[in-house]
């Protein structure tokens, strides 16, 4: 049986083979990882859909593979011939069931690139059937040259109704129209998604150089930064927070948190404060749907935390920040960043963020202007707290001042909204309630 690369996550069409963990002729167990793949989003392992002997490996380390490509061939071991009914189930595409359901990430890249197809949705059925739709709908789709596998069906069993098809076509037109308006505005400019490469410059004539291929991760970071930079009208709002009292509280409680196995970091405090502020200021937790020209408000608060790894910047997402206490946030944050540094974070853990923070404190950064992680509309940049002389009343005191910068999308947030939001964050940090730290 040929094992093909399953759809790992929405929008992930393939990746680079990092390592192959099996050899030809080797026995393999069901669900045993046989290959590591670096996608645009993370490094993940691919599990075997069934047990057997690896008869052939079709790919090599460093090779780029895409969804549906045959990776290895497995032959069921003769000794353990399964009953006929289980044979029918040893289906290579079973692996695909491990992928998240299509609706798992509604924040597909569509909102970033106006000319793109709305979301990377594609209908897949283990039985290989075309998406369910009545003959009349299929006829209309054929006439319009619409690929029905790209249309999300809303009826039972994923059946596509006329309303679904109509909504899809309308969305396409919205997007096409938005793209047409945007293009003439910058006639000579390179398209946002594909920056024109600098003309081949011979750097070597000024001195020795070395070249390194951009990793898929670096390429993704690069693409997304350009998309964000060129598509979002942004404002950077600087502020300072006096965290002297907060640091005293941290010092007081850090040991009891350590006993529980949790590191009480400044980031944990910021997360707790942010969770509450975001619920109070839903604009900062929103997205723009450029297709339907709607603002999407989210009743959840999943915060992306930028993590510096050996491979580059990765932003895993901490879920339901507004529903967790400081202890949960501290231990969850620690576990998530560790998994990220070891490149063991799952692709789903990188998706669905509604806001992002980037804390440069640990490496000594000061004020900086972070780039918004589209389709989110705001990001908070945090520098290193530094002792500074501050006027308190008519006296000068030495306090620890935390440099903050809120970068926000002016299409959604007005200046006053942003300041009010930032003020609430500062107030939350400066007057942190001890009751929120106490362990119960």
């Amino acid at each position, binding site marked *: *049986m040929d094992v093909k690369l399953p759809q790992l996550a929405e929008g992930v069409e393939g990746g680079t083979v990092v390592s192959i963990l099996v050899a030809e002729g080797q026995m393999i167990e069901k669900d045993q990882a046989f290959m590591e793949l670096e996608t645009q989003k993370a490094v993940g392992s691919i599990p075997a859909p069934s047990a057997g002997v690896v008869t052939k490996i079709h790919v090599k380390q460093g090779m780029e593979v895409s969804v549906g490509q045959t990776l290895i061939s497995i032959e069921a071991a003769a000794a353990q011939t399964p009953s*006929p009914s289980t*044979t*029918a*189930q*040893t*289906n*290579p595409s*079973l692996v695909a*069931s491990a992928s998240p359901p299509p609706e798992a990430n509604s924040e597909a890249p569509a909102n970033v690139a106006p000319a793109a197809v709305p979301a990377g949705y594609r209908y897949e*059925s*283990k*039985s*290989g*059937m*075309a*998406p*369910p*739709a*009545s*003959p009349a709908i*299929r*006829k209309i789709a*054929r*006439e319009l*040259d619409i690929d029905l596998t790209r249309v999300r*069906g809303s009826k*039972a*069993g*994923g*059946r*596509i109704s006329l309303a679904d098809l109509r909504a899809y076509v309308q969305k396409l037109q919205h997007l096409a129209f938005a793209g047409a308006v945007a293009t003439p505005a910058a006639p000579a400019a390179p398209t946002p998604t594909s920056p024109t490469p600098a003309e081949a410059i011979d750097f070597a004539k000024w001195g020795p150089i070395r070249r390194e291929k951009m990793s898929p991760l670096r390429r993704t970071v690069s693409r997304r930064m350009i998309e964000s930079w060129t598509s979002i009208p942004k404002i950077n709002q600087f502020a300072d927070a006096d965290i002297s009292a907060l640091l005293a509280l941290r010092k007081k409680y850090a040991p009891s948190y350590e006993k529980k196995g949790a590191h009480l970091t400044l980031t944990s405090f910021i997360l707790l404060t942010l969770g509450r502020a975001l619920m109070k200021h839903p604009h900062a937790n929103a997205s723009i749907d450029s297709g339907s020209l709607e603002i999407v408000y989210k009743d959840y608060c999943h915060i992306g935390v930028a993590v510096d790894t050996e491979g580059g910047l990765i932003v895993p997402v901490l879920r339901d920040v507004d529903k967790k206490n400081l202890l949960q946030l501290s231990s969850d944050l620690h576990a998530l960043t560790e998994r990220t540094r070891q490149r063991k974070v799952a692709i789903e853990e990188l998706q669905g963020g509604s806001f992002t923070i980037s804390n440069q404190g640990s490496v000594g950064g000061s004020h900086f202007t972070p780039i918004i992680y589209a389709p989110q509309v705001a990001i908070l940049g945090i520098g290193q707290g530094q002792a500074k002389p501050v006027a308190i009343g008519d006296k000068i005191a030495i306090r620890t001042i935390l440099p903050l910068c809120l970068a926000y999308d002016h299409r959604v947030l007005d200046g006053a909204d942003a300041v009010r939001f930032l003020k609430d964050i500062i107030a939350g940090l400066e007057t942190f309630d001890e009751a929120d730290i106490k362990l119960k």
Partner: protein
Amino acid sequence: MEPITTEILVLGAGPGGYAAAFYAADKGKKVTLVEQNPRLGGICLNVGCIPSKALLHATEILREMKESAARGIALGEPQINLDKLRDWKNGILDKLGKGIKTLAEHRKVQIIHGRGHFEDSQTLRVETADGQKFIRYEKAIIAVGSKPALPNAFDLGNPRVMTSTGALEIPDIPENLLVVGGGYIGMELGTVYAALGSSVVVLEALPSILAGIDADLARPVMRAAQKTFKDIRLNTKVLKMATAGKQIKVTLEIDKQPREELYDRVLVSVGRTPNLTDLGLANTKVTKDDKGFIHCNARQQTEDPNIYAIGDVNGGALLAHRATREGKIAVEAMLGEASAFENIVVPAVVYTDPEVAWCGLTEAEAKQKNIDVKVAKFLWGASGRALTLDRPDGLTKLIIEPESERILGVGVVGAGAGELISEGVLAVEMGATARDLADTIHPHPTLSETFMEAAESFYGTATHTLSRRSGS
């Protein structure tokens, strides 16, 4: 001689050809229909579906009469008048054939009777009773159908060795009839002759009759046939046939041992071959596959840009209703419409007793292709309607995609299965789920309820069975 000119030429007036011709005429095209047989309608009407079903219906009463005695109503000995039976059957064919002719005339479709031969990609020569005629066309549709295969070894030039065409004429009621081939044609015609009183033996080279049909659907047919027929011999081959006076001497191979038997008549039903010899295809760009069927794409286009092909000549399932659908697609494609044969299912019906009908994915196919499916079944023994009809020997099954609960295929065996299957066809084409079937009210008491109950059994809630959850 001036050639006849036409926009669309259709060669062959079977259910594919005449449907295509009429549709093209309805769309405003000038159409010429060429048919060698004096009566329109093709194999289906003349020597296929219609006459065989007429005979099956007419003779069914003989079986009914026998069974009726057990229900307290006994009838006397039946009197069979073969001439009258044949006339009645031919009357139906005449009526239907004339109907097609009338429909063609109203649409101003020009009909030319004679044998066609392609001279080039846009010219057909027709040998008519009034001599040769040449037709210049813009586009042509080949719809010449197929004929029963008669291997050379069996072709003795003796009318006692028949194909389905000869058998449908019922020249007499042979005392002993050998049916070579246990496919649907052999089983259907064997049933007719057995009902009329022949002692019928069916031979099949494969290990089962009705090859390709799910085993659980074929089983009730096998069980009934074992009662109706004298014998059904599986894994058996015919080595030789020879004329022996008024009988045919047949040499069989049973358990690797040759054996000689005498039969009054032999029906050879071992498959069908396309009617593509001496058609002049070499003068066109039309290509054929290694089995001799025409190559064409989903828009019914052959390799020749001016020629389309529909129906049996393309191979696959040799079914009239498929040809009809293909005919419409070919016309739409010619008119530049974005049509293609993309029906999910082509239903099939076998008119044995009991009937078998199926559509979409079969259980066997799912296994073979490693597709994970759930099968939900309802046995007719629990159907009130089946019992009142004294036909509990039935089964309705649904092939279901587990995650979406979408119905991928449907199979039915039992009385009237051919009429019942259309609900399954609609369900599959519409992308219906088992829930859709289960929640649709079906009238009581009918056999159609078995669809609803099978769907309910998928959820473990069928009213009239104690099923495990999620079916079996």
